[in-house]
């Protein structure tokens, strides 16, 4: 159950019956959850659908108007959820990565190839975010790794609350690697912290080399940039050096890797990056896990 918002597992999803609840949210914070109709059946590891939400009905009363001071960051709630996720990851030595890109940059292929390469070394799991369909989660599950799909519906990004609930179902293992594949979008996911250790931005050479300049927030927020589909470089007009310079101008500390997930070139460095960050995530975790 979600310890931050207090809504029990069955409160938000996982019901097998259908209802639209309108309880008053005076003690917790997921007001955007009002009135969901819960139509999916209850099973462990079920997928989450946020596309059916509709705000609850509140009836206004009359009293004298007054001014109340709020002074709160609009993202404060998301950040609270993200902090709770981050704490869980830290306590369990889980390396959580938030993978972001435009649609079609090759996130899911990179993931399936990564799982193939490292699946025997580390326990792994995946949270898949898309507006609709469970196609991506199905591709991951086909590799034998646990995956859960979140459909964001009208939403263009995952948020800390959605991920928190996905974790309830997924229950990632202590010492594992959790990949969170965000909705394909280089704008909105930059603003929403999920509690991850790092954002990894994936750019493919079939896109414009100037993307880091066009979507600076994302490249500023990312720790690692992967330039994917490098096997196609002979056929496209993509200036690798200029692209890397743009990314470093936005974010001087960003690390950059070039690889082809389908052909395997350059995958070694990505796997090394993962292993190094996984080792970091284990520091401070009691001994029985991963003797480094």
């Amino acid at each position, binding site marked *: 159950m979600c310890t931050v918002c207090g809504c029990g597992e069955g409160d938000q999803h996982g019901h097998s019956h259908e209802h639209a609840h309108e309880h*008053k*949210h*005076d*003690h917790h*914070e*997921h*007001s*955007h959850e009002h009135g969901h109709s819960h139509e999916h059946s209850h099973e462990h590891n079920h997928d989450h659908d946020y596309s059916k939400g*509709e*705000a*609850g*009905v*509140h*009836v*206004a*009363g*009359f*009293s*004298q*108007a*007054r*001014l*109340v*001071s*709020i*002074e*709160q*960051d*609009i*993202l*404060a*709630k*998301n950040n609270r959820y993200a902090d709770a996720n981050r704490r869980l990851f830290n306590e369990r030595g889980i390396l959580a990565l938030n993978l972001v890109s435009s649609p079609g940059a090759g996130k899911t292929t990179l993931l399936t190839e990564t799982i193939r390469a490292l699946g025997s070394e580390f326990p792994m799991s995946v949270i898949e975010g898309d507006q609709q369909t469970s196609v991506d989660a199905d591709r991951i599950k086909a590799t034998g790794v646990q995956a859960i799909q979140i459909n964001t519906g*009208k*939403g*263009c*990004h995952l*948020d800390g609350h959605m991920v928190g609930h996905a974790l309830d179902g997924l229950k990632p293992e202590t010492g594992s690697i959790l990949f969170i594949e965000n909705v394909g*979008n280089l*704008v*909105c996911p*930059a*603003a*929403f912290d999920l509690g991850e250790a790092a954002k990894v931005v994936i750019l493919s050479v079939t896109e414009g080399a100037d993307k880091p300049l066009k979507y*600076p*927030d994302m490249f*500023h927020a990312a720790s690692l940039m992967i330039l994917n589909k490098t096997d196609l470089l002979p056929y496209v007009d993509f200036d690798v050096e200029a692209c890397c310079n743009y990314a470093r*101008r*936005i974010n*001087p500390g960003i690390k950059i890797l070039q690889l082809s997930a389908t052909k395997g070139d350059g995958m070694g460095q990505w796997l090394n990056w993962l292993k190094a960050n996984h080792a970091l995530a284990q520091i401070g975790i009691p001994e029985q896990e991963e003797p480094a």
Partner: protein
Amino acid sequence: MHEMSLCESIIGIAEEQASIQQFKRVKSIRLEIGKLSCVQADAMAFAFDAVAKNTILEGARLEIDEVPGKGWCAGCSTEVGISQRYDSCPLCEYYPIEIREGDAMRIKDMEVE
């Protein structure tokens, strides 16, 4: 796009405050949106009306104070105005500028009843 979810966050905060500060309806709400934040003020206004339907914010007047971007240039030790997050110093071209103001998105206050 994400202006929609930010509006939902605003409604969440308003509903939370409704029970703490005892009010039933919001007549107007004032936001402070930094020019360097990832929000477009007009997109926010557009999304607000749609998302506020059937909530305590339905029909509320939305006021947005836009806060200009300000940063500190380590190159010439001056506080400078910037219009984009990754601008270089308008005086000496130094980069990067340390952002001091204009990247926040806050709810300031609400007129309620």
